[in-house]
């Protein structure tokens, strides 16, 4: 398996990756999440021994990547779809990689077929669209039939069909019991594919937890109530022993742990008019943005705002694997 220990990369005075330590668990899809510029690509390049860490180590099956004999048979990676020689055909680009790791020639045909590039196998890869280049990159990752697969932002720039194809491919590979490490800056994308989450911001580890835990902690569901008789409704709910949070900004009440049906019936029994009765679910994207708000490299500022006053929620909780989310309603 892959283990990172105190992995650090500095470019001049900028620390791109800051003492990163985590393990990639076997047989599951691990989502590697972080805003743009968080250090995801740099980390992945160091995992493949392309960039030299300033300090710290990466071990693949207990070894340095450099010491793996025929590494493509252990780790397949798609870091940059365009990292091929455009003047060479798709087939020959894959053939030279296969030969370097003593992978049989017929495997080249197999992976080309798998990614649907057989028809253009003899064409020079510089004429390929981004989607086709991405498929070629994935073919190169699959060449050695590796147990571990790494993808850096594989859906970036793809059309919906391409995104769906990659998503299904990853699910299929995971179902075969392979270990998949995939980076993204989109929480929504990860929620669909990942079993485990590693979140970084400004090169630092922010969270390392199962996806299910993240969802449970962050997707608190509640019911929103709006009524012209709000004070009466509040008293009523208090009498019933139900905890209520007022949100003055929107003039609504938010209630945890009681179903919309129960609340509707309670209001009806006391003849209280309701203007709104809606079940709500906090989005994972919001939770992720709150988690990384402190560490986003470039904040977008609302017009007229001071540069040192980044637009982000006023209260940012401290996050970690053990953290229990509390939504600060009404703030």
């Amino acid at each position: 398996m892959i283990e990172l220990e105190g992995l650090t990369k500095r470019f001049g005075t900028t620390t791109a990756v800051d003492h990163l330590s985590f393990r990639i668990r076997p047989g599951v899809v691990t989502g590697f999440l972080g805003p743009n510029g968080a250090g995801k690509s740099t980390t992945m390049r160091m995992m493949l021994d392309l960039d030299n860490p300033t300090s710290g180590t990466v071990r693949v099956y207990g070894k340095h990547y450099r010491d793996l004999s025929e590494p493509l048979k252990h780790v397949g990676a798609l870091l940059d779809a365009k990292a091929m020689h455009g003047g060479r055909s798709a087939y020959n680009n894959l053939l030279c990689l296969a030969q370097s790791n003593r992978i049989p020639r017929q495997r080249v045909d197999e992976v080309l077929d798998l990614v649907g590039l057989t028809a253009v196998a003899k064409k020079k890869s510089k004429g390929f669209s981004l989607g086709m280049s991405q498929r070629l990159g994935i073919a190169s990752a699959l060449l050695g039939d590796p147990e571990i697969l790494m993808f850096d932002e594989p859906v970036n720039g793809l059309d919906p069909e391409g995104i769906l194809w990659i998503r299904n491919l990853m699910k299929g590979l995971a179902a075969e019991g392979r270990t998949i490490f995939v980076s993204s800056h989109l929480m929504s994308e990860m929620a669909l594919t990942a079993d485990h989450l590693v979140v970084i911001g400004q090169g630092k580890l922010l969270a390392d937890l199962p996806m299910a835990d993240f969802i449970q902690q962050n997707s608190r569901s509640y019911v929103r109530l709006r009524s012209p008789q709000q004070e009466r409704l509040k008293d009523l709910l208090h009498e019933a022993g139900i905890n209520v949070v007022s949100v003055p900004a929107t003039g609504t009440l938010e209630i945890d742990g009681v179903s919309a049906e129960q609340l509707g019936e309670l209001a009806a029994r006391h003849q209280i008019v309701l203007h709104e009765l809606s079940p709500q679910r906090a989005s994972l994207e919001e939770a992720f943005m709150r988690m990384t708000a402190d560490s986003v490299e470039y904040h977008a500022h609302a017009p007229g705002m001071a540069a040192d006053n980044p637009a982000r929620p006023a209260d940012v909780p401290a996050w970690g694997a053990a953290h229990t989310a509390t939504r600060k309603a009404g703030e």
Partner: protein
Amino acid sequence: MAFTAVLQSEWTKIRTVASTSWTLALVFLVTVGFAALFSATFDPNRLDAAQRATFDPTATSLSSMELGQLAMIVFGVLVVSTEYSTGMIRTSLAAVPRREHFLLGKMAVATALALAVGLLTSFASFFLTQALLGDLGIGIGEENVLRAVTGAGLYLALLALFCMGVAAMLRSSVAAISVLVPFFLIVSNLLVGFEATRTVGQYLPSNAGGRIMQVVPHAFDSPETPYGPWGGFGIMVLWTLAAVLGGYAVLRKRDA
């Protein structure tokens, strides 16, 4: 990792890009073409007494190397630098993470190919021009001629390797070509041309390495050298070794 696998892979890489065939074809065509042109239009009556005394028919065959070598420089540079310009280097190093295997494999395959093309070029150039020179021509069996013609092929191979080393240091086609072409075409000749800088110029790779192609030491008024043909070649080997080690150091140290 088996080194033979890396060699096979690099051979596939080199034979499947267009730049290999056009650069190497140019080496052959330019060298042989200009040599044929020189010898077909050669008029011995225009030589003065000194030139006549030191006339070197072999040099007539090989002097066009001066131009043909430019294509060999481009070949040597592109073999290495296209890995960087295309981004292939990251894919290549993920497949062959041991930098010494990667670089050595690439250089071995490309140098062997350059040697084959170099020898083909020098022998074709020699036999064609000697036939064109007619009575003034010389046989391959004459003293030092075989050494000079073989040496020309060796020179081209070594030049390609030197350029691969420089390209590995500079990691850019444009940077490497714009340093190397003026260096071999202008700087080397200029430094040898002036009395004051001659001693320095003689130790530059092309001037030292080129000595192996001379059969008659002072043919066409060429200056005296402090080294023999193999001594000069040895100096060029040292230059090449330095370039290769420099390229390896950069490959190891810098991020891909």
